[in-house]
């Protein structure tokens, strides 16, 4: 990833959260390219129809209309062409049973949406640091939750 920017994709129906995320990316400036989609159906359509512009990392909200984040991750991990894309859950709540289920489904990391804007930035920076290298660390339960 030396010459190309890290391509992040955010799937979230909450316009405020999308704005915060976009602002945070803008302020980090220059290292990432961001695609925002507002529900699960759009996400799946984007991934399937546009295989050339596959993102490097997907940020996935769980509570979405039409198709929930759970359904999306199950579909993506079941697909031969998509399953390699790391998925980071980006959700308001942090329920341990839900967290465990998502790890089992194949999510790479779990982030509880921070309340502080500064924390949103720091959490994105951590992700960029993790996925901006050529070698991606394998999943592990110990490092599953990323704190801001």
């Amino acid at each position: 990833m030396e010459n190309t920017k890290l391509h992040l994709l955010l799937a979230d129906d909450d316009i405020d959260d999308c704005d915060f995320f976009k602002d945070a990316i803008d302020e980090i400036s220059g290292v990432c390219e961001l695609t925002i989609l507002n529900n699960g159906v759009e996400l799946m359509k984007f991934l399937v129809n546009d295989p050339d512009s596959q993102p490097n990392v997907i940020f996935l909200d769980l509570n979405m209309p039409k198709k929930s984040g759970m359904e999306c991750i199950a579909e993506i991990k079941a697909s031969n062409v998509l399953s390699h894309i790391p998925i980071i859950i980006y959700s308001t709540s942090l329920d341990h049973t839900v967290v465990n289920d998502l790890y089992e489904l194949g999510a790479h990391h779990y982030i509880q949406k921070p309340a502080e804007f500064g924390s949103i930035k720091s959490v994105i920076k951590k992700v960029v640091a993790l996925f901006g290298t050529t070698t991606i660390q394998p999943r592990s339960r110990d490092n599953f939750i990323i704190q801001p």
Partner: protein
Amino acid sequence: MSINSSTYHFLEGGGEMGKFIRAKDWRQTPLGDPETWPESLKTMVSVMLNNPFGMYIAWGKDYTQIYNDVYCPILGDNKHPQALGSSTKESFSEIWDTVEPMFDGVMEGKPIGFSDFMLPLNRNGQIEICYFDFAYSPIRMSNGEVGGILVTIIETTKKKKAEDALRENKNELEFVINSVQLGTFDYNPATNKFSANTRLKTWFGLPQAEQIQLNHALDLIVEEDKERVIKAIAKVLKDPSSDSYDIEYGILSPNSSKPIIVHAKGRAWFNEEKVAYRLTGTLEDITNRVLERKKIEESERLLRLMILQAPVAIAIMRGVDYRVEIANKLALEIWGRTKEQILNKPIFEAMPELLSQGIKNFVDDVAKTGNRFSTPEMPVTFSTNGELQMFYINFSFEALYDSEGKINGIMAIGVDVTPQVEARKKVEESEQNMRALVNSAPFPIGVFAGEEMRISLANQSIMEAWGKGHDVVGKLYSDILPEFGSQHIFDQIRSVLATGIPFQAKNQRIEIEINGELHVFYYNYNFTPLLDASGHVHSVMNTAANVTELNEAKQKVEESEKRFRDTVMQAPLGIVIFRGPENIIEMANENYLQLIDRTEDQFVGKPLFETLPEAKETIAPIIAEIYKTGNPFHGFEFPIRINRYGMTETGYYNFVYHPLKENNTISGVMVVATDVTATVKAKHLIEENEEKLKLIIEASELGVYDVNLKSGEIVASNRCYEILGFPEKTQLTHKDIIAHLHPEDLIIRKKAFAKAYVDGVLHYQSRVVWKDQSLHWIDAKGKLFYDDKKQPYRMLGTVREITEERTFQQQLLEREEKFRLLADSMPQHVWTSDPEGNLNYFNQYVYDYSGLTPEQINTEGWIQIVHPDDWKKNIRQWSKAVRTGKDFLIEHRFKKHTGEFRWQLSRAIPQKDPDGNIKMWVGSSTDIQEQKMFTTELENMVHLRTNELKEKNIDLEKINKELQSFVYISSHDLQEPLRKIQTFSSRILETEYESLSDNAKKYFNRMQKSAYRMQNLIQDLIAYSRTGVQELTFEAVDLSEIIEDVKETLSEEFEENHVTLKLHNVCTLQAIPVQFKQIMHNLISNSMKFGKTDHPVIIEINCEKVEASNLAVGSLTDYDHFYHISYLDNGIGFEPDYNEKIFEVFQRLHSKDEYSGTGIGLAIVKRIIENHEGYIFAKGKLNEGARFDIYLPAE
């Protein structure tokens, strides 16, 4: 009291499985209550249960299984007893693919069976290969449909193994028969049919049918032999003492153009009435052998003819004593003997006069050296008709050789020259006379004079031999017979002329040209020097004997003899010939050498017992007997010890020792033998096994018998005779047995037999009276066997003495009688049952109370006395008691004759024999109506209250659930807008901070704090609501690990507050890890929140296991042991008044501004500990820190 004997009669008996089946709750199976079973199923179950063969029934679409005792071992421990009542599909899932189509077929009415079906079964801890006869038969219901399948199974492992052994033996025998190329037959005179092996049928060209009419075979015998064979068969079948059947005859098979000559051998088998019932034997194809023999005989006949007609006296002598084998007429004339006087007799016995004349020396010399002895004009005196007469004879003795170059006889050739000699003597003065004499000599004589070999004399015979006419005298020998030049004959004559040494030639091949063609002759001829007065050889005389014919004959004989020997050599049987008193081996074929494991060099040419000394003891007498009687000796499976293959072992042989005769004298023995060791050993093994089986049966207490139902013959074991009271007898008739039977029991036996003839199984118990008048009980069982026509022909069975058992039963009956008398006088219900739970006695009180007659109870069952509402429970309890053998105890209602139901306490206790087996149950029922009425009322009230409570509980649970989901949803959804408020405010503070007034900044800070506290509040609420919902999975939890975890989570706060955590003693607890962590988290958070300002926080934690009884805490009684965790801090503490209160939700002791905290933390702690069935106590003192004592159960 469960199963009514009249309704479930079909489940009676059946041993262990009977118990299982009765105990089984069939309502849980597709079959349902046995009462509702179809009649045919009931019948089959009853039959099956009491059947001595393995049986099982697969009933209905599910193939629900019921089976009997004998079937259990086939199921094995892993299937029995769960297979009972379950589907075959499950029990035999591993072979269901195979079984299903067969079952389906049976369900369509098609029975199926297998014999010797192989199943590898795990029995006695190892896999055994077992064999079974299976039959699947459809069981039809009354409407004709197939309701289920009856599987009958007989284990045939032993039979199969025996059959295999037998087959193996038979195979071996067949192999032997095959290898010796024999045909076999087995003739039954009763049917006039015989069976034969394929080879025999092929020879005869008979069809390959199993049984063949004897006449069909006889028709195929060549006409000239037929009568002879019929007579031979008749003879051997008529007389047991007659010789065995042994005959040669020809067959003209329709399949073959040439007749086959066979040698049939056999023996007849006679029954006790001396009537033959079998003729078995073998046939050997001896066509070649007979043809060879005929050829040899023919050539021998020719030789004899030739010798007999020869113009010279010829005799052949054989053997050590020079028996005259042949002597022609001339010889007899010379000897002055008749044929009868001389043939086949030792010559020196027949003509003792020769012994004194030195002739024997010549003969001995020839026999020893093989050198021809010849002498002209030998004067010999013969005794003719008692008169001695002298002859002059020119004679020679020649050794005769067999094909191997051994001397096997002497040929004497003689020419009576008496007249000639006498004449010569007269003519000696006159050469003329001599010449005339020479001339008339019956053998060729010629004289050749000088080097030039001018013929000076040639008699008629020589001229005829030469075939060159009569005008030869005075001519040169070489001119007359130029063809001799190349045959070195002239050289021979010249040599005689030169040296004076006579020349002799024997059997010399001479070629003479007669009429322009070369003819071959064989001559014995001499060239003798004739000396003049000065001893000078002036002429050579030629005498000759034409032996052409003789020679040719001899060659033929040798050839045929060689052929015979070759045949023998190649025969597949072991053949050996030995001769003479020393039994010198003349020949032995390869098979024989293999038989005795010797090489030809070791064996042939040597005395038999020099090579086989180990056989001398057995064989020498046989040979001696043959020489004595001249009869052949047949050995069948004859044991002989021979050193072979490196050890001395007893082998078994079939053989014939056949005398070989020369001149009617036995000169040797021919042995034909085959090795049947393997067959015999196999036979011995079977005999041994049978012996073993017999021993086992003898050793058991069972008597065993085998009755031939047709002949009435009984074969029984000694034990059987013993039981029946015939210790000394070994042969019994039916009469004997009946005589010992107790007269009263004769009818029992008769009935049992009548039944046995119907269903094939015999079983009865009866008494026998022994000779000493003692009474014994027997238990007899038997099974009938049927022949092809379904007629019983055999009964096999066992007899067991059961006197002791019966005596015991008798005593029991007597005791029971006493008991009944007693019971009938009791003012209580008293009843008994058999071990299977069938009630068989009720005392008088039962009848008085119920108003029922014994007949009513018998036919309609005792259950009618019991209140219908109690039936179910009653039957269940009673079945359980019968099954487990534990006391039966129940409260139920009995119907009085007035119609009133009264409560009874019934109790039954099993009566056991000394071995602990239940013999019967004795039960009683006591009226408890009064007591019962009181308790019932009480129960009713409790019941009412319980129901009310239950309803309230359900309502409460409902409300609780609603509340929980409300808390969860609201707190979760509240989080989102709250977070937004925080984010937006953080954005404003970050980006617009400079443009805010100081006041606005202050308000902003407070707004943020409020939002933060609200966030904490919501999170704690969620946590609190969750503590009751989460699944309770207890794990071993290490206290120190938990605290380390919490330290890490709170690391920043730890540093901020300068916390020191002292962990004294650590335990491993049984707890829900997440929740337990929450406890420690909340406590430590509290310690930090409520620390004294400017004081470092010190926390001390200790844990130990304690006994509940040692604690001064009253409520800790649920468990014996607890883990006691004490938690101390040095914070602001609280007043003792609040020891209880601080655990309530939203209970805060301080204002929000003084100390942060939601007021939920300790409520969560308390709730979690209650989840763990533990206790927490708080002890506070203002400004002296807080103390928490936690007790968690240790079990």
